[in-house]
């Protein structure tokens, strides 16, 4: 990596934790290195205080989660209960041609070594999988990975490899019960002309804490379409790091956070245009109610020589309550001139004129507001390309917005 | 015998190493109106851009003479001042620069080249008003940024206005449809 475009915060040596004592307390090592946890003084964590994690100790999960609040898409399925694969709930047999699943704990290749939760995952993850899609294989059925947690800290790691021309649709689902921590790392290497559609959904208990990382490297003319939806958790941070490493590679990233109560949803996006003629699209929306907080940090880097880059970045925030708060930081970092880059961010309430219009057509105010909020969120949901996920989310959103779905 | 206004002889042109004009010959005498016709991609617009000196094109052999003088080595602005006017198929927008200011700057560049004094504000205004009437262009367009937000038709009128303002002998007209225009 070109040292001049490294992240600006000083990587802290303490992140390189040596955590071996996993036998006792899963967080013992982490807590023993308490100063190693990022604080709001770290630029990347400025708006995401980790009090939720550090305030009280975490135990190893005593009871594995059993119920899954997740759709069943009917295809191949991996279910991690509190960080361990549950074979009875998973479907690993009769896989479509071209898809292989190997139970393994893959080494991190794309995730940066100096990131604190990466180091934690290194030492605490016990189970993982490698998904491989063979050259030119098009997997018709979506593959599903469900992470379910309960009382304690659990970690998992998945590696996805799409060979040249391969196509895969994937649904990663995070759920669970009670107060627990879930740390996941998913890495995807997408070969030339290959295409990955992925929907990541966080629909966990209201006390769950998540720090998840998704990293992808795209080859020539490869394509990634990613939707990241956060419906429920106390603290959920999704770090998405996309490297457009082949000419003509493109990605579409969309996100939606529907936050209420005291929850904090954080999207950290990092798109690296390393090669010429690469395209990225980002559209992230936050709907924030009660005392909730929304954070968006999007970084687009255009490397020297990556001419013909076309990048857009949009973040829109809807604040429904006086106590909600949003912090947004859309960044462009550009080192070549033959580019088309733009970004925008907005924050505000529902359009009073639109509310008035609907009321003038006979809707009561609450319904008018719900309808407009639903519409704002649905502009993300309606694009989700993994079959089955969109419908499940629509139903969930409908419940949230008082039966307004469909 | 009078000298031809424009003389193109055995012109070969390449872009990115690929030859796209293979030996064009054309002579235009003063007072003549020529129309170059051909199918899409046959090189009509390339030819006009080469005459105007577009930097993307490389003349590999042949010559273009304007009133007997080769212009191949001339910069686009020198050719423009010598009288070559290329009406753009898609006139370019220049945000933040008012049409009026642009017309005046360009006109004065032409006048300077001809050894004429620059026009005062009042003289320029009178000239533009007259020409604007002539080409029937809305006066409001004069104070907007060059071509920004203009309709297709307005852009074309604006091209004609520019040409009329510096009133030269010879023009090469490029139009997007068969409805090309010629000026006496």
């Amino acid at each position: 990596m070109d040292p001049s475009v490294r992240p600006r915060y000083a990587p802290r040596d303490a992140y390189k934790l040596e955590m071996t004592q996993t036998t006792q307390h899963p967080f013992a090592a982490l807590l023993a290195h308490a100063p190693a946890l990022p604080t709001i003084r770290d630029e990347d964590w400025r708006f995401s205080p980790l009090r939720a994690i550090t305030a009280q100790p975490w135990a190893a999960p005593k009871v594995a989660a059993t119920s899954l609040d997740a759709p069943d898409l009917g295809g191949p399925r991996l279910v991690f209960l509190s960080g361990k694969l549950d074979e009875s709930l998973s479907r690993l047999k009769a896989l479509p041609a071209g898809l292989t699943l190997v139970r393994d704990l893959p080494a991190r290749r794309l995730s940066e070594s100096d990131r604190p939760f990466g180091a934690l995952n290194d030492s605490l993850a016990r189970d993982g999988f490698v998904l491989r899609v063979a050259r030119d294989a098009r997997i018709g059925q979506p593959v599903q990975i469900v992470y379910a947690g309960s009382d304690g800290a659990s970690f998992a790691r998945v590696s996805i490899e799409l060979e040249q021309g391969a196509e895969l649709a994937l649904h990663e689902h995070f759920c669970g019960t009670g107060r627990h921590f879930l740390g996941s790392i998913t890495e995807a290497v997408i070969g030339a002309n290959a295409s990955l559609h992925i929907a990541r959904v966080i629909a966990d208990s209201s006390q769950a804490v998540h720090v998840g990382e998704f990293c992808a490297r795209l080859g020539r003319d490869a394509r990634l379409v990613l939707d990241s939806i956060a419906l429920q958790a106390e603290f959920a941070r999704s770090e998405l790091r996309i490297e457009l490493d082949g000419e003509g590679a493109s990605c579409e990233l969309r996100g939606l956070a529907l936050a209420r109560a005291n929850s904090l949803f954080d999207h950290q996006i990092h798109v690296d245009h390393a090669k010429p003629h690469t395209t990225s699209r980002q559209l992230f929306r936050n709907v924030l109610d009660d005392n909730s907080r929304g954070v968006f940090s999007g970084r687009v880097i255009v490397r020297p020589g990556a001419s013909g880059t076309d990048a857009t970045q949009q973040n829109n925030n809807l604040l429904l309550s006086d106590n909600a708060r949003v912090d947004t930081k859309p960044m462009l970092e550009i080192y070549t001139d033959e580019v088309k880059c733009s970004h925008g961010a907005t924050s505000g309430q529902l359009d009073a004129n639109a509310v008035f219009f609907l009321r003038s057509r006979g809707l009561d105010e609450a319904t008018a507001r719900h309808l407009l909020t639903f519409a704002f969120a649905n502009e993300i949901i309606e694009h989700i390309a993994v079959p089955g996920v969109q419908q499940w989310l629509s139903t969930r959103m409908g419940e949230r917005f008082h039966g307004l779905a469909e | 015998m009078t000298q031809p206004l424009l003389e193109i002889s055995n012109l070969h042109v390449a872009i990115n190493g690929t030859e796209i004009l293979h030996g064009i010959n054309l002579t235009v005498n003063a007072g003549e109106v020529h129309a170059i016709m051909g199918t899409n991609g046959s090189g009509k617009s390339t030819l006009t851009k080469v005459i105007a000196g577009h930097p993307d094109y490389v003349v590999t052999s042949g010559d273009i003479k304007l009133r007997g003088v080769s212009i191949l080595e001339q910069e686009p602005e020198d050719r423009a001042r010598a009288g070559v006017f290329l009406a753009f198929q898609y006139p370019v927008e220049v945000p933040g620069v008012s049409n009026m200011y642009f017309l005046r700057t360009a006109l004065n560049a032409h006048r300077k080249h001809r050894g004429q004094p620059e026009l005062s504000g009042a003289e320029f205004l009178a000239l533009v008003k007259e020409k604007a009437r002539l080409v029937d262009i809305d006066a409001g367009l004069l104070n907007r940024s060059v071509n920004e937000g203009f309709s297709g038709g307005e852009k074309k009128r604006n091209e004609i206005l520019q040409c009329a303002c510096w009133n030269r002998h010879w023009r090469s007209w490029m139009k997007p449809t068969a409805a090309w225009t010629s000026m006496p």
Partner: protein
Amino acid sequence: MAQNESIQALTEQEYKHGWVTHIDADQVPAGLSEDVVRLISGKKNEPEWLLQWRLRAYRHWLTMKEPTWQKPHYPKIDYQSVIYYSAPKPKKELSSLDEVDPELLATFEKLGISLDEQKRLSGVATNVAVDVVFDSVSVKTTFQEELKKAGIIFCSFSEAVHNHPELVKKYLGTVVPFTDNFFATLNSAVFSDGSFCYIPKGVRCPMELSTYFRINSAGTGQFERTLLIADEGSHVSYLEGCTAPSRDENQLHAAVVELVALKGSTIKYSTVQNWYPGDKDGKGGVYNFVTKRGMAEQDAKLSWTQVETGSAITWKYPSCILKGDNSVGEFYSVAMTRDYQQADTGTKMIHIGRNTKSTIISKGISAGHGDQTYRGQVKILKSATGARNFSACDSLLLGDKCGAHTVPYIESNNAGAVIEHEASTSKISDEQIFFLRQRGLSEEDAVNLIVNGFCKDVLSELPMEFAVEAQKLLGLKLEGAVG
């Protein structure tokens, strides 16, 4: 391509204000200690309270760490090798222009700044009252008498300390406290001079006020401090300009500007910054690390306009604290970096009062190996119901070795606030240049025209005559910078 060559030729345009004036200077030894702080205070014959204030700042500074979060990189500054005070000799009270060192007068004539009021009065141009700061001290403030009639105080900071201590004491450090940041704290300890201005209630200042800064001596840092107070319902427009000689070593300029806009007042503060940018290989140049901030009370308006073309590194965020209800903050900026210049600039708009409004228009132009970052913060506090912000940040890249970055921070704690930010990055298209050349403009003129169009929204905010200056300056800076 021919275009690149002419761009190259253009970039080789040299810095025009790089000469040195040979004048004896009264300097303190290099280095920083409590003794140096006392020495500076002593030289200025300051009251005890100000010395104590400086010392508190100095002691606080010792506990601080130099920030590292910024984009520009620079070699570590040895704060013990900087000369913290330098004044042209002889230093005595000047009562008329005749007593000013002729060499100094010539210096300013050369810069195109006349200190001769008569001359200026006889000219057709609008009158501008000028305070001139040469290295560490203010050498001359023009039109003082004229301004006095309107009750306006416009003088050097040192004079204000002696003649209007109650005002200085009341407002100094209220907008930028001495604990604010590493460079502002350093300034608080060692500031040597600067401008002071007070506009009384309801007065509309009859002329543009202006401060002209020049660093002359080698090895000196310039640490001036400007304090501008607009009392209720008053109105003032203020402009500062800056140049420095070409020197191989880097010079530190760490100034502080505090603006106090009381109820219903308006302050318009414009900067045309043309410090020595270093040579074409990035050697030398001024480090322009400045803290500028204004506080707006109810119904007051603060407007910053800056044209930043000089300095090896420009690092500053002229900011507005919109404390009073209905107060307004504006920031208009053109920053140009070329050769190896770096800039990390932008603004902070802190919305506290209800119905506060802010506008940010930033235009960045980067050429050669220039690198620039727009960094801005829009912060809406819970109390700021009805707050409104609009930001537009555009970057224009000339060449493929430069960089342009946009880092806005938007923090909203109020659902009733409406915030919009947009930004784009583009290059001058070859088609635009060809089109203009086809219309008879030279390539340089074509680029100039496009850049001026790009900057129009900001340049139009400058006072008339300075807008013309700024336009010329951009033209000069662009010469050879196009790729």
